[in-house]
């Protein structure tokens, strides 16, 4: 299955036609808007969480929490930011919470953590990849939470640093440094033995 990527194309999501319907008093219009929202965002949010958390159940729980929060608090969205930035800010914080909950012990070496991640991926029935992809995902899962998020948003979803800064509330310079450190660690793990 080819997952939907979070669109970085501003025109695609900035003014979704279902957005106003989500707060409409008519339940039929609200229901249609719900379907529109889910069609656009359910898979991107799930796969965003999956890339960060790896485990299907964790990604299911976290993505569900994001969508529930978005739908419950849609009337507080003031359109100062774009809808996608607002939604991704919620997703970023939920993902951060989920990763911190499962934080590995700091005394585990990077090699040991990478080895554990590799064996988890190889045992995962819902993970289907060649060796290079498996090593890449294992390396991503050993990154610290913020570096992991920046790497996923930049590398997989091709977000601009400006957009990532709006989502995370960090400066572009700090994010570029995070991405640089993350890329370096990943390169070191992904290089296949000769």
């Amino acid at each position, binding site marked *: 299955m080819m997952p939907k990527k979070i669109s970085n194309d501003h025109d695609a999501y900035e003014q979704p036609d279902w957005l106003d319907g989500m707060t409409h008093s008519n339940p039929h219009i609200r229901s249609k808007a719900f379907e529109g929202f889910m069609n656009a965002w359910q898979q991107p949010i799930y796969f965003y969480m999956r890339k960060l958390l790896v485990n299907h159940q964790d990604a299911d729980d976290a993505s569900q929490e994001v969508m529930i929060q978005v739908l419950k608090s849609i009337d507080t969205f003031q359109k100062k930011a774009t809808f996608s930035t607002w939604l991704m800010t919620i997703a970023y914080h939920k993902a951060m919470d989920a990763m911190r909950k499962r934080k590995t012990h700091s005394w585990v070496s990077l090699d040991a953590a990478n080895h554990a991640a590799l064996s988890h991926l190889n045992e995962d029935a819902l993970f289907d990849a060649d060796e290079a*992809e498996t090593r890449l995902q294992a390396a991503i899962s050993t990154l610290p939470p913020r570096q992991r998020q920046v790497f996923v948003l930049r590398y997989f979803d091709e977000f601009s640093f400006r957009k990532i800064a709006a989502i995370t509330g960090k400066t572009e310079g700090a994010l570029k440094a995070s991405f640089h450190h993350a890329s370096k660690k990943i390169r070191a793990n992904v290089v296949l033995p000769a």
Partner: protein
Amino acid sequence: MEDMPTSSPFNVPDGFFDDQRQRIRQRLEESEKSASRFNQPARRSWMRAAAFWIGIIGVVFSVQQWNAHAACQTYACLLEQQEPSLNVPDDMLEEWLDDGALFDDILLDDV
């Protein structure tokens, strides 16, 4: 990084997205129901009335407490406002104070 894969190797169980959508819809409906139960007009007006009376009682109690202490500038004043812990009638007190045995015989003997 050009040679690194960008496709996703993650799969989901069959029907997962329909199932998740259904669960989200259910959770929203449940929270809407509980919110509307809380927001029923009768319940809302009853809660407003309760909040109003609790507020009034609180204000009256605070004003009473404040008045009781506001006029006092000295400890003697505060002491007078205390309820006496032992009720001794004035005539008994006078009789006791006039008791020569206490003041003359017992106390003065010790001096």
